[in-house]
């Protein structure tokens, strides 16, 4: 059972659809009691950093989440904006992030004018360390990205994989029980299904 954190994020339905497809039960909630008993969490997200953080603050569950993630070490997967929110702050706004991974979120600054922002495309990426998320992954995994900002971890070892778009940027982070993917597994065919299945099996 995966608990999807409900704070008004946009891509929830797609995440639910894919979990259902791979036979993983999920609930969407922001009730403290439900979060407390969660065994696995997904923090979805699409949109503006401040909008996301403010909405999450409004649910009043951040303290509970801190305890779940940092003390109880419940596995959590952040997706897209949800992944960026795992960090300290973002150049997109002024709100503080959750601060679970020591990273900042930066705006693309590309010299090549043929490259558009947002980066909206499929990209191949493979992990540069062993990760449960990528266990038995299909060959040449590719994922769908839509983002104008990217994660920049301060500790190299928190980087799980990178992608090249006018330079290398971090596509996923992993630190103990905390996972974050810049891409959208819920929209990435069998590669996304495998990744979500792996997360469900952690």
């Amino acid at each position, binding site marked *: 059972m995966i608990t999807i954190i409900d704070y008004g994020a946009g891509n929830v339905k*797609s995440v639910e659809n894919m979990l259902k*497809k791979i036979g993983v039960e999920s609930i969407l909630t922001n009730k403290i009691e439900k979060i407390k008993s969660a065994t696995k969490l997904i923090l979805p997200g699409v949109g503006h950093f401040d909008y996301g953080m403010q909405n999450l603050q409004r649910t009043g569950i951040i303290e509970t989440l801190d305890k779940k993630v940092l003390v109880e070490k419940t596995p959590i997967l952040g997706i897209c904006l949800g992944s960026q929110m795992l960090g300290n702050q973002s150049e997109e706004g002024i709100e503080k992030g959750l601060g679970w991974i020591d990273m900042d979120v930066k705006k693309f600054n590309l010299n090549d004018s043929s490259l558009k922002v947002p980066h*909206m495309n499929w990209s191949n990426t493979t992990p540069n360390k062993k990760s449960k998320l990528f266990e038995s992954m299909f060959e040449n995994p590719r994922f769908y990205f*839509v983002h104008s900002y990217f994660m920049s971890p301060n500790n190299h070892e928190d980087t799980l994989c990178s992608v090249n778009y006018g330079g290398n940027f971090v596509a996923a982070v992993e630190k103990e029980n905390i996972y974050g993917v810049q891409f959208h597994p819920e*929209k990435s065919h069998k590669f996304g299904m495998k990744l979500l299945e792996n997360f469900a099996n952690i």
Partner: protein
Amino acid sequence: MKRIRVIPVLTVDNEKLVKTIRFKKPNYIGDPINAVKIFNNKEVDEIVLLDITATKEKRSPNFSFIEEICSEAFMPFAYGGGITSIQQIEQLFKLGIEKVVLNSCIEDNFNLITEASNIFGSQSIVISLDFKKNIFGKYQLTKESGSKKIQYSIEDYIKKLELHGAGEIFLNVIDRDGTYQDYDYNLISEVANITTIPVVACGGAHSIESFKNAINSSASAVAAGSLFVYRGRTKGILINYPTQDQLSEEIFNKI
């Protein structure tokens, strides 16, 4: 290697999958949900679903039908057809779509682009432009499936779209729809030179080579209808899509 998005376009008459020629003579193809399932297996980059009779019949988007399709779409999914209000756009995003495609309602309501892109991000707001040649052989922007002219010049209209926060331009050429006569590369370059918004080329693709040429004419992504639902020009129905190896060899390594 540089990847680009190669996008099948599914046109529906309400719940029936059809394919037109020059936006006319809709030919029944089959069940759109079945087509989406096949495109899942073929791991397509993205799908654009357009309800081509919604505006004409003054229908709202068919939400229950779109929801059913979305639940089977494990790739980015765009929907267009009959959208006129921000409430409809909100409803569509709740169903799990990634992008809305707007067209006929925009000339009288550019603010809808701004309103929607402020909430959902400009990357999820696609404007479809239907180009059609007039009797003098010059391209004219049209709406309502080509039945009405848009009163702006091409350049003025696109500048306005950009100013209001459009995230992507879906460039469709009615004269070439379903004809396999190739994209109009000059038009693609012309439009891409007017704006920094990514341009998706559509209308007339005859092969994978068309895709490569469109990208080399400054399109950011390519789309096609007939090519992905018919087997060659003999028009046997066959939902198809190039393999990753084909795409790499014939496009990604050549652009």
